[in-house]
């Protein structure tokens, strides 16, 4: 063979190398949601939410905002297909037998586990999702006490694609606190962290067939999942920190001025709302001489008054009162949540990570019995809140305050009032 033909043949072989991976975009079944249910017989039941491109509103389809898949497809924005197999990987591989196009998992955005699945351990599912190259680590992980297929069938108007709607609900919560960041990357990191207690968003379907974010589920190793409703999750938010732009409502605090006490008590049932601009949490771990572990959790935050419950003047004293009342409220919520977590031996606040970082040698000795050590640990909680001016002071009662008596302006770095002002 002459040299130029060899080069030509080599070039042709090189060019044809890509043919094996060539896939037209309209030959793909784009999966955007996966539901993983464990059946009573120990089988894995997988529900795949597949986009119906021609009916998807983002592509100019006719489905409009009415989401909700059905088995026959039709003009819905997405389709649901289900398989059952002994393992998750078998179930996903089985889709090739009942779907005409190739299953494309790289754009999967949501994985829903049911309670039974979490109860029997989802370590194998994590391992599969981490190792299989088709998946991306940004898929949101959600747990539901009902059927995952039912959650994937719920209506998420105005978002036409159900998986996107569910994910958006969790992302909205994650903007306020990192505890709601339940993408696979963070979940697996928590799973591999010292506490080994990942947090998954807990969602259920309400009576109107709409998904609702109920709270979080902590998955301690070897224990059933601990469901934390929203009221408890608030305490976990403060414990884990940081938080942004959260609302804190509380009974309107009564000032120390006795002359106003009577009038104020009459309005004691009114509610005052503080907008917590941001909070930061510091966790300090100490090993006491008696061998016990003590955590000191300090929260520092900045807040604005969003609504004042009564007609008291918003003077310097009132600002102090509001700061103290807000801090007490936060401390109360933190203590309640911590008590629950310790009672259930579930380190959802990831205190083990702080302990490991500060005392790695001690951690190695105690890690085997961490749930018990955590349950017996002494936890000191302290919250410090600085209520600052919002800046919108036109025609408010702050105007008649002297400049020196006003609290600090809301700005970067003004988390606490200057010492000696009050």
């Amino acid at each position, binding site marked *: 063979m002459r040299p130029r033909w060899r080069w030509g043949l080599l070039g042709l072989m090189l060019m044809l190398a890509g043919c094996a991976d060539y896939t037209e975009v*309209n030959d793909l079944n784009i999966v955007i949601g996966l539901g993983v249910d464990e059946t009573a017989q120990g089988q894995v039941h997988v529900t795949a939410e597949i986009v119906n491109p*021609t009916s998807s509103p983002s592509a100019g*389809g006719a489905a409009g905002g009415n989401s909700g898949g059905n088995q026959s497809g039709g003009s819905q924005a997405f389709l649901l297909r289900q398989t059952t197999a002994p393992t998750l990987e078998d179930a996903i591989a089985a889709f090739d037998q009942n779907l005409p196009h190739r299953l494309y998992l790289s754009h999967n955005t949501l994985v829903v586990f049911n309670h039974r699945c979490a109860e029997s351990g989802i370590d194998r599912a994590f391992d599969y999702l981490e190792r299989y190259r088709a998946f991306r680590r940004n898929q949101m992980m959600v747990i539901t006490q009902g059927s995952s297929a039912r959650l994937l069938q719920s209506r998420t108007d105005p978002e036409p694609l159900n998986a996107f709607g569910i994910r958006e609900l969790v992302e909205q919560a994650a903007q306020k606190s990192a505890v709601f960041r339940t993408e696979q990357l963070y979940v697996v990191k928590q799973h591999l962290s010292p506490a080994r207690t990942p947090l998954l968003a807990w969602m259920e379907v309400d009576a109107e067939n709409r998904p609702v974010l109920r709270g979080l589920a902590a998955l301690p190793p070897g224990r059933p999942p601990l469901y934390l409703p929203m009221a408890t999750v608030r305490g976990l938010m403060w414990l884990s920190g940081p938080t942004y732009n959260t609302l804190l409502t509380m009974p309107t605090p009564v000032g120390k001025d006795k002359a106003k006490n009577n009038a104020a008590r009459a309005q004691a049932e009114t509610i005052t709302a503080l907008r917590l601009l941001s909070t930061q949490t510091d966790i300090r771990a100490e090993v006491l001489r008696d061998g016990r572990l003590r955590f000191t959790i300090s929260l520092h935050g900045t807040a604005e008054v969003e609504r004042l419950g009564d007609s008291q003047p918003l003077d310097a004293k009132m600002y102090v009162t509001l700061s103290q009342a807000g801090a007490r409220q936060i401390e109360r919520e933190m203590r309640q949540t911590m008590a629950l977590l310790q009672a259930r031996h579930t380190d959802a606040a990831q205190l083990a990570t702080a302990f490991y970082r500060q005392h790695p040698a001690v951690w190695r000795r105690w890690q085997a019995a961490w749930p018990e050590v955590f349950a017996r640990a002494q936890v000191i909680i302290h919250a410090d809140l600085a209520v600052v001016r919002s800046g919108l002071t036109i025609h408010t009662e702050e105007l008649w305050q002297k400049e020196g008596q006003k609290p600090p302006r809301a700005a970067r770095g003004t988390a606490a009032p200057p010492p000696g002002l009050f």
Partner: protein
Amino acid sequence: MRWFSFRSRRNRRTASFDAVWSGLRNLHQARYRTARAGTAPAQAEAWQEAPLPRRSRAFHQALSELWQPSHDLRLRTLHIGGRDIVVAWLNGLTDNERLQAGVFDPLTHADAYASSPEALAQRLTATSITYARTMGECSTALVGGRAVVYVDRSGMALCLDVNRPPGRSVDRAENEPTVQGPQEAMVESLDLNVALLRKRLRTPRLKVETHELGTYSRTQVAILYIEGVAKPALVEEVRQRLQRIRTDIITDINHVREHITDAPFTLFPTTEETERPERVAGNLMQGRVAVIADGSPTALLVPVTFFNFLLSPEDYYTQFTLALPLRLIRHTMFWAAILLPALYVAVLSYNQDLIPTPLLISVAAQHAGIPFPTVAEALIMMFSFEALREAGTRLPRAVGQSVSIVGTLIIGDAAVRAGLVSPGMIIVIAATGVASFTLPGLGLVQTTRLLQFTFVLLAGFLGLYGIILGLMFLLGHLVSIRSFGVPYTSPIAPFIWQDMKDVIIRAPWWVMRERPRQYETLDPVRSPSPPPAKTKEPR
């Protein structure tokens, strides 16, 4: 396997390239030798060197026979002072009024004493008079628009400058339009083009070296440079390359360009063309050399770098702060013009996970029912776009615009409705076309048109890997080219920090104190003026 051996790979590759090169070189040299030794050039030289006949009748007859049949040759015989005087000129190349006033009027009033050529030259009022002693010189003078006056028994002819060559006047630059700045463009006359440059560079150090190229066309080709600024070795290199040209006709500057260019088989232009005289003047002051040919309205600028093609004359006519975003757009658009369709094909055919999910859904919906694979769809659309662009260029301007609109709107829309191509592909091809239109250098536009096909094929066969492979080859090729000794990708590779002031950014004029170092100018200082000082308030 014996048929493929890594050990001998290098030698065989070299051998194959050498075979191609040596074949082309031998073919060219053989033809050149044949032309030199052939009868036609020898005959041409023979009549050119023939001396003028002694008698006017014989001169009249020789000239008639030499030019016959040529209806534009005019021959008049006058009897003045007892001698016959033959006047010859080419109608159309001469100004009849100047001929009458500068030749015929003085001749009719000449006396017997003005019967010798030297004496007659004192009486004639033409601006320029030269003497011709051979038939070749007479013919050259005639085609140069001169009137040839032959005095009987003198054996010598006077050549009087009465020319008025046909041509257009100075007009607006149509191929390199700008909103601001000068608008004059060069024309097909060498003298006029040199005059346009003289108007801008009023210095005797602007040198114009003229060479006559083309055995038959005898085209005047001029080398222009600034003495004391341009590197002498560069001027000498241009001079030698021009002198090596052996051809019968030079019709355009491109003919010269192909003869003197480096890397003749590259897709990238290694000389720069411009029709703007002020751009030529500015580049001459940077130490570059210009080549202008008579009959061509564009000038060649050498040496050239890749980044010269992404500079627009407008960059220098607007505020320097505004030039930066415009240049960034052009740099981005160049790569977009090459890579955009290829990236679209690669991402849709191999790497769908790189597309945002809503966009993937939208694209998948668009592709439903399209009978062609994405790569074929892209090639069809690109071919159609190039056909429309070519049709729009070739047709008269008014019709060309109509073709473009018809092609873009009606054919594109009809193709989408018929389900032949997807709307996304139309958008990508249209965006690629727009990106290529932002490039100021026409030479680079043609390059992008070819390269985008190559990259689409690579993307169709190998995906993003193919694009990266192609880019590596492309960059390797770019850094291997030189233009008259200057690396094509300078001042980026090799990196010359001082020359970066006019590549991505356009520094203010008071910062550009030195000429580009890459051209190795004799006088490196360009402008020693200080930066503008802040105005002090009057006390």
